[in-house]
């Protein structure tokens, strides 16, 4: 929000001037990256529809309810098709990818998911389906730009910094807006009195309309910027002791663990709380498991549980469940931040609301920068001989 002439008989106070300065500079520094975030964010709101239209994720041709082959058969077929690779994790997502299994593979000696590729198999035939050499998808590329600025985990912190700048801009904008509404009622646009006043009114009017949405998106964007940091802390604090314990045990062959993936699914499901289903099974010897254990990720079936996850550890040699690690509050908070940031949890209506708010925010970001540039231009002395 912006104002040209702060109210008050004795001129602007220090608190007002500080907030005006803060609003101006936090907004200006964040302008270009924020414009990129708004543009990529608009596309990412519809990532499910775009992926479907582009055929990024293959769809099963079999009717729901057709008997399915064991998951281990899918894994064997994937390893036969890609002999130089290992499986890092497998997963099912009946809501978004019905009838197919997602098999994440990496180079034979990989422990990290950094160079991972997602393969798909048909759950009915256990045969690989879809593009045999999937590259970066369009939405995947945009997500990498939006979330990481193509800088990897360090880029997430850049995103958090931009979110912090925008958050400060919003809060200081409220302070700057307060004296403005003493003179200009909400919704009033001063037409016919110059471009500057009209743009100023539009900036304040639209800023007031999108304030709540923008606060949610910036706070969640800030939290998401610490995603990798939070997972790293979780790996050290929750998974660390188990890894230390696993080092004393005999490791398993991570390509062919003695307890196969179907049994691991069944064991994890038996240990799961009611209403929670195994969605992902991370193989032994990865950054999210130990050389001896599978890590099963569970999702809830309804309400907010659908957005959270729980973890069950399965011994890949004995089939025992040595521990059900707790998921700390900060991981839950970050998990909930994702839908709140992308607005993909309330159907098309919410996506359209998100798009409208994003575009309105895009407009006031650009017109705020124009207001600053216009004021600066008018303050500069004209060269000699040029009529004012």
């Amino acid at each position, binding site marked *: 929000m912006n104002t040209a002439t702060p109210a008050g008989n004795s001129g602007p106070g220090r608190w007002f001037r500080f907030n005006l300065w803060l609003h101006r500079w936090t907004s200006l520094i964040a302008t270009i990256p924020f414009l990129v975030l708004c543009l990529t964010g608009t596309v990412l709101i519809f990532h499910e529809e775009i992926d479907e239209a582009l055929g990024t994720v293959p769809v099963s041709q079999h009717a729901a309810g057709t008997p399915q082959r064991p998951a281990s058969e899918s894994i064997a077929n994937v390893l036969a098709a890609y002999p130089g690779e290992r499986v890092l994790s497998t997963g099912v997502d009946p809501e978004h990818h019905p009838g197919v299994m997602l098999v994440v593979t990496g180079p034979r000696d990989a422990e990290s998911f950094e160079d991972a590729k997602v393969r798909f198999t048909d759950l009915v035939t256990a045969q690989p389906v879809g593009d045999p050499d999937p590259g970066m998808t369009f939405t995947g590329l945009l997500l990498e730009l939006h979330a990481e600025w193509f800088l990897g985990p360090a880029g997430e912190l850049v995103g958090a910094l931009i979110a912090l700048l925008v958050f400060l801009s919003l809060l200081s904008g409220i302070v700057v807006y*307060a004296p403005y509404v*003493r003179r200009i009622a909400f919704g009033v646009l001063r037409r016919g009195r110059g471009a500057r006043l009209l743009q100023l009114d539009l900036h304040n009017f*639209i800023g*007031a309309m999108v304030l709540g*949405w923008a*606060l*949610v998106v910036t706070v969640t964007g800030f939290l998401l910027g610490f995603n990798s940091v939070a997972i790293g802390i979780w790996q050290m604090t929750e998974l660390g002791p188990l890894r230390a314990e696993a080092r004393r045990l005999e490791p398993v062959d991570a390509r062919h663990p003695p307890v196969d993936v179907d049994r691991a699914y069944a064991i994890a499901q038996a240990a799961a709380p009611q209403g929670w289903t195994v969605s992902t099974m991370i193989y032994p010897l990865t950054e999210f498991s130990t050389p001896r254990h599978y890590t099963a990720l569970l999702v809830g079936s309804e309400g*907010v549980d659908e957005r959270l996850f729980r973890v069950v550890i399965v011994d890949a040699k004995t089939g025992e469940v040595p521990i059900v690690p707790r998921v700390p509050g900060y991981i839950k908070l970050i998990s909930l931040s994702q839908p709140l940031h992308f607005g993909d949890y309330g159907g098309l209506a919410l996506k359209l609301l998100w798009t409208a*708010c994003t575009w309105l925010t895009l407009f006031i970001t650009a017109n705020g920068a124009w207001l600053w540039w216009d004021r600066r231009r008018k303050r500069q002395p004209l060269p000699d001989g040029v009529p004012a």
Partner: protein
Amino acid sequence: MRAPKILRRVLALALLSVAGIIGMLLVDSGWDWAFFALAALPLAVGGWCYGVERH
């Protein structure tokens, strides 16, 4: 309308919008439309004010 009242209303609208956005995620589907209405309330009020001002 007095300025502090307008500011309070703008802030109340923003808070209601935040409540709607979060409520829609946390509460099960029966209340979805009520929460969506709250989330979209600032845009609806803004659109209405803009319409009144135009006429």
